[in-house]
């Protein structure tokens, strides 16, 4: 019964938190720039507005263009449910479904279709965005696998549920959490890798890919990317929280609240970073992501030395 209640809270949270998080990020960014900024609830209004609008679809587009957003949002929603906000939250029978490799490959499924949809309209911007997205994910994936793999070594299992149910080595947790945060900046098309708010399509990655979308489909995409923000920041927050020994002893609801606070805090941190940093030249993105890779490798080294 208690479990069911928590699950319901969690599902409602998954509907609300992603858009709220986007609102918080925008608000903090506006404050950083000495603007008042839009209300925190603005993303909700935007989404409601976009769902009421008709969409325009390119004549060149095929079913790939039509179905990619739906596949993307469905995958993100399933992954958001599976990625545990806390080890105790999901029923333990779900553990195999929270395998981190499954999660990463499911996200790759949505990425695959997003990239195809970008090329589908025959627009050069879409191709450019897809090509860059492919490059970024090639730079990011190894770090993610090595980092979470290092974390999993402590738990003896590749299921996220098991990983986050137990205590982690604080060094490994901090290093992996930091690496996850850096890779999240790239995966979520945030500064300094990508700037979602420029005026020039040529400089963007994610926005260039979804340039052709409008109306309902755009709303679906926006929600999916808000969900992905939640997933990645949630992973990073959970990992960082595991460096804090007392976290495990909190009662479940306060742990959940701390987890959400962590996600919002990381979101604000991302916004602060966006206010301070400038966008990197495309060619220096690999150097930036190399930091994440090095942290992942260090974590792997520590984790490996500590087994047994």
């Amino acid at each position: 019964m208690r479990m069911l209640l928590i699950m319901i809270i969690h599902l409602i949270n998954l509907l609300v938190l992603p858009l709220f998080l986007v609102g918080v990020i925008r608000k903090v960014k506006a404050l950083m720039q000495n603007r008042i900024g839009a209300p925190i609830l603005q993303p909700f209004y935007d989404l409601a507005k976009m769902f009421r609008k008709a969409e325009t679809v390119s004549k060149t587009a095929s079913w790939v263009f039509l179905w990619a957003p739906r596949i993307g949002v469905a995958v993100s929603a399933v992954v958001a449910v599976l990625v545990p906000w806390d080890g105790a939250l999901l029923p333990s029978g779900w553990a195999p479904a929270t395998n981190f490799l499954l999660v990463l490959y499911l996200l790759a499924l949505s990425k695959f279709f997003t990239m195809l949809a970008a090329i589908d309209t025959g627009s050069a911007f879409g191709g450019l965005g897809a090509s860059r997205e492919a490059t970024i994910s090639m730079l990011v994936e190894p770090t993610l696998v090595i980092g979470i793999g290092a974390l999993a070594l402590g738990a003896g299992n590749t299921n996220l549920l098991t990983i986050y149910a137990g205590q982690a080595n604080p060094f490994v947790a901090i290093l992996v959490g930091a690496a996850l945060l850096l890779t999240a900046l790239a995966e979520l098309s945030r500064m300094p890798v990508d700037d979602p708010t420029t005026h020039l399509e040529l400089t963007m990655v994610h926005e260039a890919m979804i340039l052709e979308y409008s109306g309902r489909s755009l709303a679906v995409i926006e929600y999916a990317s808000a969900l992905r923000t939640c997933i990645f920041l949630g992973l990073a927050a959970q990992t960082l929280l595991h460096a804090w020994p007392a976290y495990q002893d909190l009662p479940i609801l306060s742990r959940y609240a701390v987890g959400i606070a962590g996600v919002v805090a990381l979101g604000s941190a991302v916004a602060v970073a966006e206010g301070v940093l400038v966008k990197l030249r495309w060619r220096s993105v690999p150097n930036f992501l190399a930091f994440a890779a090095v942290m992942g490798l260090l974590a792997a080294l520590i984790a490996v030395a500590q087994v047994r």
Partner: protein
Amino acid sequence: MSEFELWGGSGSLCGVALFTWLAVVLTGLLKRKHSGLLFALPTIIGCAFLLSAALFGKNSTQILPFPLFLGDVGFRFVIDPLSRWFLGIIGLIGIPVALFSPGYLHHLRHRVSLGFVWAGLALLMISMVGVVLAANVLTFMVAWEVMALSSFALVIADHEQRDIRRSAFIYLGATRTGTAFLMLGFIWAHHLTGSWVFSEWGLSGTAALVPALLIFVGLATKAGSWPFHLWLPIAHPAAPAPVSAIMSGVMIKTAIYMMVRLFVLGNHFETPALGPILLILGAISAFWGVIFALLQQDLKRLLAYSSVENVGIIMMGLGMSLLGKSYGIPILTQLGLAAALLHTLNHALFKSLLFLGAGAVDARTHVRDLERLGGLIHRMPWTAGAFVVGSAAICALPPLNGFAGEWMLYQGFFGLAQNGESVGLRLGGLLLMGWLALIGALVIACFVKAVGVVFLGNPRSQEAERAREAGKGMLAAQVILALLCIGLGIAAPLVINPLGRIAAQTGSPSLLQNTWTIPIALLALILVGTIGVLAVWLRELARSLPAKRFITWECGFGDLGPRTQYTASSFAQPISRLFGAIYSYAVEINIKGRNRRHFPETVAVEMMHEAHLETKVYAPLLKSIQRMASVFLMRLQAGSIHQYLIYMAVVLGVLIWLGVSR
């Protein structure tokens, strides 16, 4: 062995399949103009018999009766869970390929003798079954050579084109080199053990090393592993599409089969060096294959390089299996083996699907250059759909079939990171997981490029614009394979049992039952349900406000046409620039015109990429071999009949002396 056992069970089913194909070979050689059902039907029936042998047959060892002997060595066959696994793969891929061929070969009818292709195809199938069933060196070598020659004949089928002749001779050279190594290895092993039967070999320690390495090089050449892969991206694209599908999907796997049979199962060659060698070469092949696949401009060459990648992944699994064996970690041995075998089956399915798709595109547009394709999803919707499924499967995306195999490999490496003896070994396990992830991301880039440039966007040439959907047989073949990719992905637990039986051949009882835990079918159901609900809801919204169709955003310049689309080479450029150390990569842009800055008249862009391995290692090596040949061999073969007569007399004398002295 009683008469009943000799011809009962799977042996007889295989026999029926072989004789059906033999009939196809003979009719093919006699009726060279025919194509279609006359050949397709018996080929499919043969495959069906083979499949039933694989699924329901019993395990047995069979020795053919007396007249079929060479010296004192007879033909000897073995049917065990391992050979049945590969028999299943041959039968499974054979059926769609036979369905596809009549429609495809039709467009080659003026250049190629169709009956000849069918005869070659059937002979190739026969020889592959022979390799998989072989229990001793004689049977194996005969089947292996028939396989090499029949596939050579198929590659050179379209022999009026100079390129294809060149490719075929490179292929022939590669098979000869491989066979030379194999022969040396086998003779060495025979010398040490006194037996020609594989199962009677039991070498260990330093004695095992040299024959094992020789045999390995021979097999790796056939499998297309780095650095012996050079022939593969040249030969596979040159063959007609169904043949490429069989060669990439099945034929190169026979070498994998022999690696499993000789190195992984049983204790035929116990040498700790093999595991790391397979693992490292596999890791390099996988990376090398995918990075070069990404660079290719030719659809079939792209697919061929991707085969190098997948063979690399399979070899990584085998290497891990051997590593587990030498460190005494049975779960690693079994996971590695299971991952390798599962990936072998998966790769057979999606790679033949993709080659057939490329063949359908080739048959309808006569274009293989990526930069001249595009927009085919509107003109060939079924082919495009099947190709998308195959691409998603080869990217190992769940819930398709590629995922289970790669997931097992990940689990194996994770096991290595957990149970390895030294810190280095454990770190190696984690790093290999990262390496696999890197390769996975590159594969996604590669196949997004392939699908995107071939099927999506606007057609880049008239040929692509005029394309129409492939014929029914061609479509049926692709759809069957696509459905198999989906079905095998969702029903992954079904294959764990046969894999467990093979894993039990390693010596310890199967540990695989509890390894595959992911509820993939449920997950697929939930995904499809979510997408369905969403689609229904969006359709409701669309009822009041239907979507408008309009041109793609062109910044207000007016319709820009297909030339402004992103090209295959520009898509690959960011990644290919990053790995410039292993090849020379150059883009040459030539702009001509009186005022070339403002009014260019011709703009030509040329891309060039050459692997340092080819230009700096193989090319000088081949050149020096040629020089040696022209110095020494020219004297031996001077064109003088007197000299040749002396050779013959000398050889005859030596043979008689050998016979008498024995």
